[in-house]
């Protein structure tokens, strides 16, 4: 008894280890490779086009554009620069691209395109030890009073000072004092500068960050703004509409920290315009790029997912079988259903996947029925075993041939699915069913076929399920868990479900 106890313990241990391993690699694949439990997952990919336009003044040209740097908040899939006749230089440290060229005369267009994905909400913090206090704005007496009133009013609002002021600016209807204080028409930038002015009154240093708000179909738009305010130890980002602190995931920062977004020397009327295009890429295809970003490319290179698609599909097909096997084990040792041949139901299920459920089921039933009829004739001849089963095999082939031809002529695709069933297995099913029929009666033969088919259908439902196939492929470590589960089931000594009925007369004695 002791010995078996240990076997079970060892297997349980390995089961737990494989479970932990599967859980960890699922976590890893989701986090670093962007895998998902759901099939057909896609990743949103954003193309941001920046178009720089300026008119040369006739002097040598030097253009400097602040560009996004990939980090925790988003990943860069691709960067592309189109600037004919320019020398392009990327300064990774300051996050700027410089275009230099000799003097030109026509209006110049330079393009910078960046493709980003996995954009996430960020904190948007930027540490800086000390920042000079802002210069106090100069007001006349009337303005002074208005500002005091606005700030008293703002103080009643929630949040930090930058948030209070942003909220105040976005109130509907606007506070009358504030609306009197502000010019009637303002650009986004002027509005933000007014906020900064009020923050300066409270001695809070502030500045603007520029970037692009990801909105589908954005065309030739100006840079979007966010407010940056210093809180004594770090710069914080604030949404100009909601006052929300932090970097929202739909905002890609190009420039922050006082410098300019675009510097052009040797040109005038310079401007930069942004266009945004969203596209969708299968998450699986992105996995390789994601893994490369984390310096764990080796892990990826030695996984299924780095293989050519054909091999991947073959493996995807194989990876679902352990689950089918688990079902067979459960059906036989836990439920207690008797099937013809151990893995026959699984082979039938595999064929059903290829033929389609109903078509397969119908044509398989027809093959078995015709086969049993022919086999009944055969049994009258009293042939020896090997020639007899061989004859059944040939019968099956002929039935398949007949069904395929007939199906084609009659335009019944159902009939032509007959060829997908494994010939030898089908022949053995017929042989065994017919022996059971002769020895134990038709009822037993039919029930044996019926239970085999039930098991096949259950297996089919599992292995044809899109979600299950995706999970066993994308998180293939689950097959280790199944392996140890199956082995552990090899030590299961409890009653089978069917025994609860079979032995029911013995339960009543209590």
């Amino acid at each position, binding site marked *: 008894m002791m010995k078996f106890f240990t076997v079970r313990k060892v297997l349980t241990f390995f089961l737990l280890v494989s479970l932990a391993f599967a859980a960890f690699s699922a976590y890893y694949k989701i986090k670093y490779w962007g895998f998902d439990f759901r099939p057909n997952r896609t990743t949103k990919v954003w193309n941001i086009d920046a178009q720089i336009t300026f008119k040369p003044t006739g002097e040598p040209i030097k253009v400097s554009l602040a560009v996004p740097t990939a980090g925790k908040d988003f990943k860069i899939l691709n960067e592309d620069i189109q600037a004919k006749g320019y020398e392009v230089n990327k300064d990774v440290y300051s996050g700027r691209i410089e275009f230099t060229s000799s003097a030109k005369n026509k209006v110049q267009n330079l393009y910078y395109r960046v493709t980003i994905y996995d954009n996430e909400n960020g904190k948007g913090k930027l540490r800086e030890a000390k920042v000079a206090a802002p210069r106090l704005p100069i007001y006349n007496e009337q303005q002074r009073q208005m500002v005091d009133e606005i700030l008293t009013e703002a103080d009643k609002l929630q949040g930090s000072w930058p948030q209070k002021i942003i909220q105040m600016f976005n109130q509907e209807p606007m506070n009358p004092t504030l609306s009197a204080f502000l010019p009637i028409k303002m650009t986004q930038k002027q509005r933000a500068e007014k906020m900064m002015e009020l923050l300066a009154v409270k001695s809070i240093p502030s500045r603007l960050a520029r970037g692009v708000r990801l909105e589908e179909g954005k065309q030739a738009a100006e840079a979007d703004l966010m407010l940056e305010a210093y809180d004594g130890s770090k710069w914080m980002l604030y949404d100009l509409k909601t006052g929300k602190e932090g970097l929202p995931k739909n905002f890609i920062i190009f420039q922050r920290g006082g410098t300019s977004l675009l510097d052009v020397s040797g040109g005038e009327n310079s401007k930069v315009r942004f266009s945004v295009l969203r596209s969708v890429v299968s998450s699986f295809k992105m996995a390789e790029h994601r893994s490369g970003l984390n310096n764990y490319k080796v892990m990826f290179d030695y996984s299924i997912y780095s293989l050519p698609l054909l091999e991947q599909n073959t493996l995807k097909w194989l990876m679902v079988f352990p689950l089918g096997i688990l079902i067979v084990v459960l059906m036989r040792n836990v439920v207690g259903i008797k099937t013809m041949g151990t893995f026959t139901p699984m082979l039938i299920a595999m064929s059903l996947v290829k033929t389609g459920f109903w078509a397969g089921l119908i044509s398989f039933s027809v093959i078995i029925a015709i086969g049993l009829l022919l086999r009944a004739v055969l049994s009258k001849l009293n042939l*020896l*075993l090997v020639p007899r089963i061989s004859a059944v095999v040939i019968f099956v082939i002929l039935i398949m041939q007949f069904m395929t031809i007939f199906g084609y002529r009659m335009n019944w695709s159902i009939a032509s699915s007959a060829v997908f069933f494994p010939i030898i297995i089908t022949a053995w099913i017929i042989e065994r069913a017919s022996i059971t029929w002769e*020895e134990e009666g038709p009822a037993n033969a039919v029930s044996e076929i019926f239970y085999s088919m039930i098991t096949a259908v259950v297996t089919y439902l599992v292995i044809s399920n899109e979600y299950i196939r995706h999970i066993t492929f994308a998180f293939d470590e689950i097959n280790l868990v199944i392996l140890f589960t199956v082995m552990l089931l090899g030590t299961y*000594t*409890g*009653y089978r479900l069917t025994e*609860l009925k079979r032995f029911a*007369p*013995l*339960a009543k004695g209590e």
Partner: protein
Amino acid sequence: MFEWLKGFCRPSELKSNGVLGMNARNYKIISKYNNRRLYPLVDDKVQTKMLAAREGINTPHLIGVIEYQHQVKDFLELVKNHPQFVIKPAHGSGGKGVLVIKHWDDDCFVTASEKVLTFQDVYKHISNTLSGLFSLGGQYDVAVIEEMVNFSDMFKDFSYQGVPDVRIIVYKGYPAMAMMRLATAESGGRANLHQGAVGVGLDIKSGKTLNAVMHNLPISVHPDTKADLRSLVVPFWREHLIIGAKAYEMTGLGYLGADIVLDKNRGPMMLELNARPGLAIQIANGKGLVEVIKQIDKTYPQNLTAEERVDFILNMKK
């Protein structure tokens, strides 16, 4: 809607009644006490017969063995001094391929079920046996020809056609449980319980009826002969048990089923042994095997001879 669920019982109910399940039998008993190497001893009837003779266990006398197709035509030579004989596949199971010839002359053979066969029919039967028609995995086999058992008349009223036999489950050499299997019209003269034969659980100490079932349901009279099953007593019970107990020494199998028939002249005879006996015997006995197995493991003495083990059981206080 859940009416069908009433046919099921709770696992705890079976457990408290000590019912041995298939998984527990395979894992805890067969894989532990029945070495796979020993299976051929019981799967091959020729070997079983030879081993039995060495242990002094009665089996039907062997007339001859036909091993090759070219020997088949000479089978009349073998049986010429035997007015009755039985042809069996050496590796058959469940009575498959057994041909019982009650009497014969040069051109006709009469079987136990009064069927008349020609020489050609019997020839073909033996030939099929050799090619594996009746053997377990369909592999080539040999045909065993042995003397017919002269069944005792004592059970005539208890069985519809067919031959009643006693099945004894032997655990570590101790007879643990016994039943008698009686053929019915429904089972077609066969003694297989799942085909509708009657199973009569026998008291291991006395060979008297404990309980009788057909299709898992308790019955008290035979459905065809109307004999009162409770009046059934197996004579020569000690000899039955000794055959079972000796089968342990003979094969080394820790868990086996011995099938025993009663011959009018020679007494109890072993027909065959089974290394994976089924569990239906529990239903026939109305109790589980676990309790007696535990007792044998814990309290029954070891290193006794077969006779001593049988006497130990017979003298046990209930």
